[in-house]
């Protein structure tokens, strides 16, 4: 069922390092006539840290957000893949009475068992609304490797997002925007995630494989749907290229930025100049700016 109003959970990174994701997402949704109502007084979802230290905390934090959205009687949309994963996990776990009671206890309020928490990712939201997209500037000639990351698709029984090995949601959107989605094998391989902080060597290795494979597949750029993936692939790219002595140069976009461009939104508003790997030369080269 298509809806035009959603509760919106931006998550911490979208207020800081991934501002351009938040802003472009809001602009695109506005252009499509989708109203996003940001949750009031939202907290951190717990990210990778909470659930790796304390299972209960890992559920209780996103459960707060689920409760807030339920109060608004709106489906909840998340932009960050990690937030999405945590919200989905919490919704999945809350189906069990034992978990509901436990969470209710720590939150100090009862959690109704008949509540069905609907959580979607921004990708799914846009995919459902491609018919509303008025493409002003089709992204002809742009070859995009769609990178989903590991958290959107797995585990299937929790996120139920798309095919685990070869998802198509973002590819469909990119095609509607007029760009070419290149076929490649690393759509859902891990970029290293938050290991960036403690074991950057792992991130360099994994992200290098992703970038090299995308380039080998003939992509000009990557489109992502996760601020952590973006950070690893964009901000570390120069380090990676230097370490492997590779001639890698791939601008990394949020898919919402590409959508904004195609919908004719001013590039400045989309904060395309905020990336480490400057995408403007590529876009000018392709005549898209």
């Amino acid at each position, binding site marked *: 069922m298509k809806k035009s109003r959603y509760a919106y959970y931006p998550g911490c990174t979208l207020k800081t390092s991934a501002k351009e994701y938040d802003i472009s997402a809001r602009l695109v949704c506005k252009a499509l006539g989708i109203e996003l109502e940001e949750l009031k007084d939202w907290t951190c979802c717990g990210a990778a840290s909470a659930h790796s230290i304390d299972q209960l905390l890992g559920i209780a934090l996103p459960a707060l957000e689920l409760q807030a959205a339920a109060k608004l009687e709106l489906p909840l949309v998340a932009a960050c893949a990690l937030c999405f994963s945590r919200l989905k996990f919490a919704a999945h776990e809350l189906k069990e009475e034992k978990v509901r009671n436990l969470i209710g206890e720590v939150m100090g309020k009862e959690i109704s068992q008949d509540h069905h928490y609907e959580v979607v990712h921004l990708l799914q939201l846009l995919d459902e609304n491609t018919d509303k997209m008025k493409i002003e500037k089709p992204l002809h000639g742009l070859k995009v490797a769609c990178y989903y990351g590991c958290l959107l698709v797995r585990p299937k029984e929790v996120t139920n997002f798309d*095919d*685990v*090995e*070869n998802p198509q949601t973002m590819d469909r959107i990119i095609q509607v925007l007029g760009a070419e989605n290149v*076929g490649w*094998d*690393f759509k859902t*391989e891990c970029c290293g995630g938050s290991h960036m902080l403690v074991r950057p060597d792992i991130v360099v290795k994994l992200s290098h494989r992703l970038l090299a*494979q995308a380039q*080998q597949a003939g992509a000009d750029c990557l489109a992502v749907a996760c601020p952590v993936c973006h950070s690893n692939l964009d901000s570390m790219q120069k380090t990676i290229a230097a370490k492997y002595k590779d001639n890698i140069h791939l601008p990394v976009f949020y898919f919402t930025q590409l959508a904004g461009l195609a919908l004719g939104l001013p590039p400045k508003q989309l904060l395309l100049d905020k990336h480490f790997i400057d995408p403007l030369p590529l876009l000018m080269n392709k005549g898209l700016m």
Partner: protein
Amino acid sequence: MARIGVFVCHCGTNIAGTVDVTKVVEVIKKLPMVVLATDSKYTCSEPGQASIREAIIENNLNRVVIASCSPRMHEATFRRTVASTGLNPYLLEIANIREQCSWVHSDDKEVATAKAIEIIKMAVSKVIRHEPLFPTQVEITKRALIIGGGITGIQAALDIANAGYEVVVVEREPSIGGRMSQLDKTFPTLDCSACILTPKMVDLGQHPKIKLMTYAEVKKVKGFVGNFEAEILQKARKVDHLKCTGCGTCWQKCPQKILSQFDLGLGKRTAIYIPFAQAVPPKPVIDVSICRYIKYLNWVATGQEGKKPPECRICEKLCPTGAITWDQEEELITEKFGAVVVATGYQTYDHSHYQEYGGGAYPDVISGLQLERLMSASGPTGGEVIRPSDGAHPKTVAFVCCVGSRDQQKGRPYCSKVCCMYTAKHAIMLREHDPEIQCYIFYIDVRTGGKDFEEFYLRAIDEAGVIYIKGRPSKIYRDGKKLKILGEDALIGRPVEIAADLVVLATGMEPSIGADELARILNASYDTYNFMVEAHPKLRPVETQTDGVFVAGACVGPRDIPECVAHGGAAAAKVSALFSQDTLTTDPLIAVVNQARCIGCLLCVAICPFKAISYEVTRDKRLIAVVNESLCKGCGLCMASCRPKAVDLRGFTNQQILDEVNSLWL
């Protein structure tokens, strides 16, 4: 007036250890019409049976209740005991006080004893209304229908025919031979598959008792054991096989080519073709979906729209015997049979479902069966193993076991049984082809349950130097010209990466397409994967729940060649035993319709799971249900669903069941 004898069995301590047998006998003795109640240690033993015989004669009994184990265990035995005294064997009732009483209440003797008394009371009240029943005899058509012409069907057909009975083999492909004809060598002996199969194919083709129908499919089967009637669709070959000599001129000259299904897309065949050189019959069919002249005829028939296809007819011009018959159409043939053997075999799992391995996407990721075609001397490359993408000779080959087997994610949790062994065979043979080829095998477990199988696996490691890596790979991707396999060596607990030239996925077995539809046609059961279900997995492995329908080979579950041959032979033995009788005795415990009560709603016709009920119009123009005595299994569904209570099950009538229930509070 009923004179009932009740015999309570101790079954050693199985019953007597829990049920107070003496007390039971004391209570039962006092029931009306019970002339005699007694107990014995083992009723089924010879002395036990003898004492029943004596008691029947001495006390002039005309009804017998035996309280012992389940009727599934010894009802037939005790019926014979009763019959030997001259009493009708259907005047016996079994009260199950073991499986349904002593075994399940072993912790409470009092309850068990009380329940045993009630069970026997019910049997006594039921046996009063038992009537003498007499089995009927039906004739048998001594002719077997074999569906599927693979090694299983071939073996079954030859065995039945050699026993002297007529056989019709129906095969949907243009040739018999099945999967085995696609194999190069067979494990663990490495003998050539074609060399051991083709003589059997020829034997079948020439057997005077066997009628072979290739390019044909069974569409409908009705009737019952001994008297089946099957509708078989003979597809149009467009070639008169009576005139054709199989000289081969047509398929050598035909200009229209398509990827060969037999070679799994690795080679090409023509529009008029035999699937492989040793095909039986060695005569071609025309593939009407690609033949140029057929396309031309269709173009003419549909009003000449679009581009005009060429009027090729090269095969017709070159055929020395004038065997090409363009006007030959498909034809529905009806034949009678006494028994059916399903031997529809398997197909390999479609590896394009494994996107993480590039299955179906990368030409150099192939299935095990495709490798068989590449290694076969009669295959598309003449036995030269090359990479499909560029024709290069691979130097590193990686095998992945359990593709489409033991994988819950893909909905295939079962083990396909043959893949471990055929992968070991592939690796050994590749090393023999070219000792420079390095072989890696990713496995979960190596399963070698079979004669000489473990030795064969050790030979792969010790003699051929194949490297086994424990662990299912997570991903296969292209890296330049190489294929990179990412996995884990679970024995050392470290990730491994191998760059290979060719990847072979050991795809598992699944039932041939359409197996479920055929099962429905035959009224046989099939499981969630569409494998056929045997009547009993251990004791009745080739029978089905439908009498006269037998199953054999890989349509029942993953099986290797020796097992398929054994099961084909087993099914043949069952069919031959059936045909060795002139008539069949049918069980009289079946449904009967009281025509005066039947209102013709025909609910029973829809409900009957054995299609045993049909209808007739009476002289006064009323619809009434009629039970086919040979098809009825006596399940009782019709009786339960009949609103005017017109249907009764012999030996289990409505009144008898009410009497049983009433006995509990009388």
